């Protein structure tokens, strides 16, 4: 039961972006299309799961005082790996994501989970936590990307959805659209939470 909780809590109840308010920068910056959002989500999830596993494995031998530098070295190892793999196999996506790929290393979600979860729990729980949080992050960033792409360009994952008369609102792909979309998503979440509380 608790293992299931470890996995599920990251998706909705403790969703890193909408509830915990961390990892905002990549969420907004690379979510101009669904494909970019999805790519970023997968890259960050990969780093998150791998670093959670390794940190959970070495936590018994990690001195408390220097744990943060150790976390950072582990995380940056996986980020460098992702960086080079992406550059080699997905050059187009890599070009779109740009500086945000190496910046995964300072993504607060990853260091936050290392400190709050992987350092205190076993390998299996930490792996599931990594998967759950990564999935929650990927979900939000892909949904935001899809909304912005749909309204701003009339497509989803590059496929045309509306008929040709549709006038796309370019503003949604530009930076202001990112702020509006996440603001609206959060407002909906608040609205339903308030409704649930009143009942």
């Amino acid at each position, binding site marked *: 039961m608790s293992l299931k909780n470890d996995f599920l809590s990251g998706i909705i109840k403790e969703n890193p972006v909408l509830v915990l308010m961390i990892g905002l920068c990549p969420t*907004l910056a690379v979510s101009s299309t669904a494909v970019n959002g999805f790519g970023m989500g997968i890259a960050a999830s990969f780093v998150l799961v791998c670093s959670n596993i390794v940190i959970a494995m070495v936590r018994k031998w990690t001195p408390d005082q220097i744990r943060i530098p150790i976390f*950072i070295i582990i995380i940056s190892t996986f980020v460098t790996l992702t960086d080079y793999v992406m550059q080699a196999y997905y050059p187009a996506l890599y070009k779109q994501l740009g500086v945000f790929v190496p*910046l995964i290393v*300072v993504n607060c979600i990853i260091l936050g989970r290392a400190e709050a979860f992987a350092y205190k729990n076993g390998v299996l729980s930490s792996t599931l936590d990594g998967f759950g949080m990564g999935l929650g992050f990927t979900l939000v960033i892909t949904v935001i990307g899809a909304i912005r792409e749909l309204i701003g360009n009339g497509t989803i994952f590059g496929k045309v959805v509306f008929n040709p008369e549709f006038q796309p609102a370019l*503003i949604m792909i530009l930076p202001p659209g990112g702020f509006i979309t996440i603001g609206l998503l959060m407002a909906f979440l608040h609205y339903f939470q308030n409704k649930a509380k009143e009942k």
Partner: protein
Amino acid sequence: MDSTSLFGILIASLLINNILLIRFIALCSFFGVSNQMETSIGMGMAVIFVMMMASAVSWLIYYFLLVPFDLVYLRTASFILTIAALVQLEEMYLKKYVPTLYRAMGIYLPLITTNCAVLAVAFLNIDYNYNFMQSMVYTFGVSAGYTLAIILFAGIRERIALAPVPKALQGYPIAFFTASLMSLAFLGFKGLFGL
């Protein structure tokens, strides 16, 4: 105007590609500390200070250590560790020798270690192939742009705190809408001086 001239770099990084509102870097601190004018100013000053030092050091490390020894793949790890160590060092130095400055921005320094803007600028200086002078001007532009945006935003948020806001929009949602409108305004700088 030539986009590699020093003035061009300054304007482009300060206004046209404002790091917070157009490039979406360092948003956590943007929403986290912009509740009050005073903390925003302190944070802005601390960012300018740390960023200038961190860029200079990481530029030197990249071109005098990583490139000659063919260790470019260690870029991510070495930059983040350098910046973390540097911030610690600056904190200790300020505490001992410049206590007034430390009181003004001391509590913000640890926060900046995880501020992605500092690391982002270190990477961008390399990605854009800037020489040392250009990278210093670029860093100053970016950090001043950060300060400008966060101070403007704090001014607006102080007013919003007093305004009647619909219940579902209270807190972060309304802050995001505000940021969206500010970002729209900053988009207007595009094309300034033909950049």
